[in-house]
């Protein structure tokens, strides 16, 4: 991330703590995560109390909520949508499919989740300023809320890479 980018990001993150406009992008998911995203809007979870609002166009979005493994067919649409997002671009990769390609991570018809998309974005020079991965299958609404908070830097993530020796 260039110097300019990180300043932009810090400013945006500060503003976003008060109101976040999210765009829901389904890249070929089974809809499990998608209905949990919608569920987060409904009275039991009510993310609107955080100022999170669903918008209808990537051009107005602060954050992309991305579900699905990114199928071959949706890839061009996904790239176009991310490109039309104004900087800074923040993406929340939701669920097993988006984070790691899902149960079908290696099939002929999917690309393998955000890991692969990251490479493609780099090849095309499309910059994404910040990404957070939210595991789950499907992701609970609470996990989505937690994911947004981690993405925006409101809370520290809990997980960390670990390598332990067996035995002992």
């Amino acid at each position, binding site marked *: 991330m260039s110097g300019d980018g990180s300043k932009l990001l810090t400013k945006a993150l500060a503003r976003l703590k008060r109101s976040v406009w999210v765009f829901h992008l389904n890249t070929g998911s089974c809809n499990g995560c998608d209905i949990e995203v919608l569920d987060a809007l409904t009275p039991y979870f009510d993310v609107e109390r955080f100022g999170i609002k669903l918008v209808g166009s990537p051009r107005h979005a602060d954050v992309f909520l991305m579900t699905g493994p990114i199928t071959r067919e949706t890839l061009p649409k996904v790239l176009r949508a991310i490109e039309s997002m104004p900087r800074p671009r923040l993406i929340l990769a939701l669920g097993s499919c988006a984070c790691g*390609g899902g149960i079908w*991570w290696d099939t002929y018809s999917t690309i393998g989740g955000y890991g692969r998309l990251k490479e493609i974005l780099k090849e095309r020079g499309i910059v994404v300023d910040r990404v957070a991965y939210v*595991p789950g299958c499907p992701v609970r609404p609470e996990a989505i*809320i*937690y994911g947004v*908070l981690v993405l925006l830097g409101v809370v520290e993530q809990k*997980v960390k*890479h670990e390598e332990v020796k*067996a035995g*002992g």
Partner: protein
Amino acid sequence: MKLLSIAARAKVVTRRYPFEPPVITEGFRGKIEVDPKLCWGCGVCTRICPPNALTLKEREDGTLVLSYFMGRCIFCGMCAEVCPRGAITVTKEFELASLTAEDLVRDVKHDVVRCRICGRVVGPAVEVREATKGVGGEEAKYYDLCPECRKLVVARGIMTKVGVRP
């Protein structure tokens, strides 16, 4: 209006997570944890894992690593059911969001036993040690041999005994 009366009766159902605890039921499956003290590196969990979130890979430094990639986990809990050592527990953790994919990885590193003749991997050190614990005598001298080399050594031993030149 009618809807208002319905709304009034429903009251407020919002659980103000994260300020209030989430509604998690007793059997909820969150992330798994592999106990390194119990793990044998046998790989049965990797064979049942539908998305291959659990993998057993050989590293350049010669170790065998059981790697758990939370990102791809589908939280089915089958690994915990099949582990012969009960080394895997299913927790209720779901707050797993991470800013990097690397932080979603947990590795259990195993030293391996290599065949003293051909160098191929016989198995994870823990597995070989535990499986052969308490068995001594004649058998013990074959534990650091791979199956092919073991066959050769045993065959040579028999031939020597009966007086045939190998």
